[in-house]
């Protein structure tokens, strides 16, 4: 499912709203989630999951082409942990179709 398919599904669920509202809502939600992580603020959605930042310390890496060693600075990377409901639903469905 892509972002535009998600927008279409939501527009279908809310026929009382203008189609543009579903699109604006999806964009506003994703934008707020990305901005929140960029500020170092975690996201916690009950039943879905949580997004945190994980720290990666500075390290010495290598340019795979030239073999030259390069220093890779410390950074943060986004990390998602699925919540209980999502975890159980995804797995339950996989088990019944197995």
């Amino acid at each position, binding site marked *: 499912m892509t972002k535009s398919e998600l927008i279409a599904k939501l527009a279908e669920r809310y026929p009382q709203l203008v189609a543009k509202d579903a699109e604006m809502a999806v964009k506003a939600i994703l934008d707020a989630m990305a901005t929140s992580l960029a500020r170092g603020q*975690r996201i916690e959605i009950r039943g879905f999951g949580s997004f945190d930042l994980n720290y990666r310390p500075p390290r010495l890496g290598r340019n795979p082409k030239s073999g030259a060693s390069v220093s890779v600075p410390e950074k943060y990377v986004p990390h998602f942990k699925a919540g209980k409901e999502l975890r159980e639903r995804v797995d339950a469905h996989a088990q019944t179709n197995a």
Partner: protein
Amino acid sequence: MTLTKAELSDLLFDKVGLNKRDAKDMVESFFEEIRLALEEGQSVKLSGFGNFQLRDKPQRPGRNPKTGEEIPITARRVVTFHASQKLKGMVEDHHGAARG
């Protein structure tokens, strides 16, 4: 401080102009549609944010850490998230802390 569904619905009220009830329902449905797609075995690709993918993991040996007893960890399907280059770029330079 943590971003939750309550803040997201306030945002849809303030920025998109949905009424309070529609805003709350929309946030709930947003996550429910993603859950439904994943439940059906579809991956979800949100450009500019990231992809939610499914991985089927085989059974593997495990141990009860309290008793040391060996018990198999059953085969299961799990959800993984891969942040987009754009999102990675946005959080990379963050030097405050929100470690999970």
